[in-house]
């Protein structure tokens, strides 16, 4: 257990970085999602793995029983998962729309917002 989680994090981060470095729009978005999964696992593991009992206090008690899981990272990771999912959806729609408009899924084709080419030390005059 203690080895599987770090390995899973490493695998997710490695795969995520590899995909994000691609020039394909969809791979980039998916890469960020996989990278996000790795980070979420890291966040989850930050509360220490091991104790498995549900973090529920008995009536009248003022502290968790020994052996209870840490509830805080679960709340944090839930927040991060929701945000990450929303961003993934947005990113996929954006990539699809962009690929449709640019008729290419290659990031190198995204030139519409680059500075205009020019001669020597000056950029070209923009079109009216």
């Amino acid at each position, binding site marked *: 257990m203690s080895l599987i989680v770090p390995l899973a994090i490493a695998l997710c981060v490695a795969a995520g970085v590899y995909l*994000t470095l691609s020039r394909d729009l969809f791979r980039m978005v998916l890469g960020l999602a996989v990278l996000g999964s790795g980070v979420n696992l890291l*966040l989850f593991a930050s*509360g220490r793995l091991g104790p498995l009992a549900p973090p529920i206090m008995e009536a009248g008690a003022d502290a968790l029983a020994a052996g209870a899981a840490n509830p805080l990272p679960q709340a944090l990771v839930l927040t991060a998962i929701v945000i990450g999912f*929303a961003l993934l959806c*947005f990113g996929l729609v954006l*990539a699809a729309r962009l690929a449709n*408009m640019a008729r290419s899924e290659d990031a190198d084709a995204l030139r519409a917002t680059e500075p205009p080419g020019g001669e020597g030390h000056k950029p070209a*005059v923009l079109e009216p």
Partner: protein
Amino acid sequence: MNLILAPLLLPLFTALVCALLAGRPAWQTRISLAGAAANPLFGLLLLERAASGEVQHLVLGGWPAPFGIAFAADGLGVALAVVAALLGLAVLVHQAGAAEPAAPSPGLHPLVHLLLAGVGGAFMTADLFNLYVWFELMLMAALGLLVAGGERRHLEAAFKYFVLNVLGTLLLLAAVALIHGATGHLNFAALAEAARRPELAGVLPGYLGLLALALLLKSAAFPLYAWLPATYHSLPAPILALFGGLLTKVGVYALLRLFGQVFAGVAEAPVQLLGWIALATMVSGVLGAAYHWDLRRILAFHIVSQIGYLLLGIALMSPAGAAATLYFTAHNILAKAGLFLIAGIVWRLAGHHDLRRVGGLYAARPGLALLFLLAAFSLVGVPPTSGFWGKFLLVRESFGQGQFLWGGVALAVGVLTLYSMAKIWLEAFWKPHPDGREMAAPVPGLAPAYAAVMILGAATLGMGLWPEPFIAFAQSATAGFGTGGRP
């Protein structure tokens, strides 16, 4: 009554009401403006209490600190929240005019207010994870505003912004997770205590380096600023002013809060590095601006350059350096946004963003030329504008610490900034219009745009002519920063 949450709840509430009024644009605009006007007023109420040195606290959920989600209103956070609220008002007033406003869309006003809520929340929070959440809220609202134009260039800009900024927030989240794992805390006050435990001295500097990397990406520092000049120029003028004024400054604020206060003195080496990053940011930003002839691109590169000054104040790691950064940030938000709003008016009057296709504005609109000169001098740092005092505080503290190279480069970059502003003055205002465009006739609908520029111009002039209360406030708000003072 506890008003700590006003800087985030009021924009959030306004955004909600505006979203519900999506089918009634006239009412949506009215509610949006009313919310934006009320926001600085609530901020001033908070400021009054923060000015007396009182730090208001609020812990949500009834949990005792450090377990509940804490908010704190101290001088630093409140001052920036007021400036952000003022900018929000100016931007929405400008949007009501005819100077290159964003195309009307039902989502525009809700998204602007959501962005302001994210900024206000980031300034008010006293919790590391909560800070990440506000960054995400800002990111989502910003993405919505970026794609609002719907043309290919907007989507391309949004995609580049999306990839690099999501990477930034993931780095931030990873740093938050590692720091939480090491210290067991997220609350700023508890983190400040825990970070000084000697057994953490081995791991914490590495985690803090990751945190700094994420925040430097968010604040567009060298060499991580590529996303900014690639995207900002695709935005319409008021939204561009909002982005250029606020978003990167929140990253700077987080750096100042975390490295100047919470983790001050924990990691020395990264702070030295920050000084050199600041210099590289200043120089590369201003050189980028010198190359371009598109007004929006010039000003976007100047954002990067000015971020360098703010980082320099943090890197000096002293109360005076932190006070200079606070004063400079407030000044920079106002002056920079004012220039972007003026760029919108220039576009409306002279018909283009490229400086080689415009001209003649000094003869046709001397008032506008005066407003531009005020904002441009403020950016350069000519007295009696606010920029002079910001640079004065910063350079004096650099020299005082014996960092003559840092202070010297800050002064030299000011000269290059002057070159850039002089280029805009000569091309857009001084030379005749290349097409002989007739600009004497009054252009309808520009009054709100002028009003917005004047709000910001008056603020920067006021900060410059009566600097003492502002500087005294900045110094009291950042007392103990950089020297291991506890939040």
